[in-house]
């Protein structure tokens, strides 16, 4: 589990989910490698905040659907509810930062293309994909954040995303160390 740039497969996954979450073109350009750096400043922070909110709203929609339909297996519902709560907290934090800076946060999309969710396995695999995409996006973008308050918030959000991802990897029997 080495650090370093995204593998092509991971990059495609992040981009697919970022596009589905309506992430802004400038940020997509950075994530797909066609732009090497974003300009430092308030506008970049706002673009990253909008991108992050898109991913958080997508994650909330997934956990909402999985929990409402009873798709998470009984022993994992508490994890799903906890992770949903974390994503709500991340959303509210970033909405607060945008509003504090005089911006208008983007609303969630009317619906999200979440694919086939018919079983516990489907919803956990999708949750893992969404968490991996969020973790990869925050990791890739965090060095582009210009202000200390948002950088600190993003760091703690990233810690949560890694925890979610690691738990779902373990549930699916994937390597975690």
């Amino acid at each position: 589990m080495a650090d370093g740039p995204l593998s092509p497969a991971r990059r495609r996954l992040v981009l697919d989910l970022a596009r589905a979450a309506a992430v802004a073109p400038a940020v997509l350009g950075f994530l797909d490698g066609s732009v090497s750096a974003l300009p430092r400043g308030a506008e970049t922070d706002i673009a990253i905040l909008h991108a992050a909110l898109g991913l958080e709203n997508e994650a909330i929609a997934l956990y909402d659907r999985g929990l409402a339909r009873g798709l998470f297996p009984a022993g994992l519902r508490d994890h799903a509810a906890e992770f949903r709560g974390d994503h709500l907290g991340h959303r509210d934090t970033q909405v607060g930062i945008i509003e504090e800076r005089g911006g208008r946060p983007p609303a969630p999309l009317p619906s999200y293309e979440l694919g086939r969710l018919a079983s516990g396995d489907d919803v956990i695999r999708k949750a893992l994909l969404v968490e991996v995409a969020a973790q990869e996006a925050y990791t890739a973008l965090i060095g582009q954040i210009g202000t200390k308050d948002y950088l600190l918030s993003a760091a703690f959000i990233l810690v949560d995303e890694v925890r979610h991802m690691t738990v779902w990897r373990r549930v699916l029997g994937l390597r975690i160390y």
Partner: protein
Amino acid sequence: MDRRQALKAAFLAPVAAAPLPRAEAGDDADAAEVFRAIDRLEADVATRLRAIARALPSAKALAGSCLADHDRHRAARERLRRRLHLAKAAPEGREVANALALDALRSAQEALVYAHAEGLPALGDPVAVGTLARHMVDLSRHLTVIDLWIESEASRG
């Protein structure tokens, strides 16, 4: 309210600017202090992992994996020190209390994760921030693995 709860409350309510307990590197730390704190906390975790692996053969694989990540992180930090024109790291030898206690390992690991998170704003360099953020991802994963280990030990009674 412990430090973790205070931090989480603060980052979830940035506008309210709740006062934070002071981090090991300090809230106004410079990059050199951040690196020193990380070196110290990493050595603390490494000492515990080695002790646990010696006492508990089933922990060897986890400890080996975490320590290999530490080695890679330390080498990357040295490159960052050169990039930022900081002094080289001093060797960190550690003696720790309760070296075999899982909850003490967890606390040390959490402190190491937080030193990264709270240190990022002090670095002032996008490459350094990106690098230490990737290290933080590894370390947060280690922390979760330790949590899952503690949970499974507790469920076994």
